[in-house]
Each structure stands twice: as C-alpha cells, then as structure tokens.
C-alpha cells in the first residue's frame, strides 16, 4: 500500500508540474518528460543528478504516535525533494538564484492542494486501481541553499499522511 502512496504522490506532482510549467522537462533514456523523477525508480548510473529537475527521495515512514492504536493507524512518510541549477551560459550562471527561486515557486504550487486520491499503479495492464483512499501532505519546508562552485541546490521536505488499510482477519 505504501508503494501506491509513493506512486500517487509522484504522479500528482508530475501532472501538476506539466500543467504549471510545460517547459520544465528533462530527457531521460531518450524520452522527454516533466522534470521530476523518483530517485529509487531510476537507473543507477554514475552520472551526476539531473540539473533543474526535482528529485524525490523517500525517507522514513512511521505511524503517527497518537493515532498508532487506531484500527487504521495514520502513517507518516517523509519525502525530500532536491533540485539544483548551474544557471545559464548566457548570463554566466549569474541567474542561478533566480532559476532556483522559480523552482521553489513551482514546487510550492504543485504541492497545493496537498492531497490526491490513492491509485495503485502496480499492474502494467489496465487503468490503475483506486482503493478509495486519500493521501494528504504538508507544504514543503525549504532547506538552505547550498552553493558548490557554480551549482546552487536546495532540498525541501514534505510530510505525507494516509490511513493504513485494516489488515485482513
């Protein structure tokens, strides 16, 4: 079930990014797609992370303490979203702060509203199965900008919540 939450979150953000800024695309494996990737779903190569692309990294998952004893406990997942830029050659990278600010704004926009229907994408055939759950999340908390030479990067954190299904029996 947790996989369905992760997939649903990614798909929601991907579709919102495509609508918010259709120009923000990235080429992966010869295929052009919205510039947002789930790190754990991508091929493992030595190449450095893609620039001007949102990278979703899944972190800890745990029941919310006060609701852990409920029949369907509320679970919390943490997702860190990293992105970086080296600015443009035309402006000799002096616009890297502006590019990063634009990405901050896009991330804030695509995270609102902070909810989506959970869909199970695990079957390659047919439409995704919707178990009738809602996944909801907090607004992103933006970390400090990191500067590494020409590269400026930032990591934001989003907390997601959903009720786990009752176990059978």
């Amino acid at each position, binding site marked *: 079930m947790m996989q369905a939450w992760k997939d649903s979150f990614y798909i929601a953000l991907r579709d919102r990014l495509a609508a918010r800024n259709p120009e923000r695309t990235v080429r992966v494996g*010869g295929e052009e797609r919205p510039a947002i990737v789930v790190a754990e779903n991508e*091929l493992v190569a030595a190449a450095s992370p893609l620039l001007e692309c949102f990278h979703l990294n899944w972190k800890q998952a745990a029941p919310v303490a006060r609701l852990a004893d409920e029949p369907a406990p509320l679970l919390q997942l943490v997702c860190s979203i990293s992105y970086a830029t080296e600015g443009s050659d035309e402006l000799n990278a002096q616009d890297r702060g502006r590019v990063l600010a634009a990405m901050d704004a896009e991330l804030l926009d695509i995270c609102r509203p902070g909810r989506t229907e959970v869909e199970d994408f695990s079957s390659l055939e047919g439409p995704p199965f919707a178990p009738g759950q809602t996944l909801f999340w907090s607004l992103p908390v933006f970390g400090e900008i990191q500067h590494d030479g020409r590269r400026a990067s930032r990591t934001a954190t989003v907390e997601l919540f959903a009720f786990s299904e009752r176990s059978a029996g």
Partner: protein
Amino acid sequence: MTTAPNAEPINRGLAAQRAAETLLHTLGGTSIYVRLPLDSALGEAGELGLASPATEDVLLAPVVVRNLTAPKSVRVQLELLVAAATLARVREIYAVGDALDFFNNALGVIQRGKLFRVDSVDVDEFSGFPYLYRLKVSE
C-alpha cells in the same frame, strides 16, 4: 605569408594514444563489457520503476585490470585502464566529454561475469589529447 601550424604537439598526442593502447596489449590486456541502456520509450511504467530499458553490452579490449580492494574489505574495487584509441576504434569516441558521457551513463561494467558499478572516471591527457581513461569500479 601564413605560418604553418606546428604539427609537433598533434603528432605527440597521437603517438601517446597509440602507445597507450600498445602498452595495455603488452601488459596482457583483458576485455570488459560496458553495459549501456538503450533509448526506449517506457512511459509511466519506466518512471514508476515497473519497466526497464533494454541494454547493450559493448566489448572493450585491451583493458588492464588492477585490484584496488582494501585488505579485509568485503567490497571488491578495481581500476580499469582503457586506451582512448580503443574507444575511438570501438565507438568512434574521440572527445573527452563524449567518453565521460559514455562511461557515466553506463549501468556498469562486466568483468569476468560480474557487474561492477562505475564510481569515477579519470582522464590522462598529453598535448591536449586524451590517451588513457582510468575507471574506478566497485561491486
């Protein structure tokens, strides 16, 4: 009157490229396969990690393999020496940037049937010509 460009550095660079490949042969060069993903439109299934692209294994020889595994380490680390001339012959790769893309986009290197991940790639150049690539790979 125009002055002819000095061909000396170019000749030395080309000589270094040929010498590197010959040296690797002499040192008993073996062969490796570099595994590359093929461009393929996998769509949503690829984005969700439900499908993987087809791959191509590119044979490179001669290659010299040096064992860098630290004592008591369970993780095998190797250094692979590949001549720039080999890359030019096998894949028509001449520029350093193209060579780095080639190795950095690889899913791994197969040596004696084992898949190793590429950790880093260093380039040795002479007179502006790359003549040797040093790959550090690990299990």
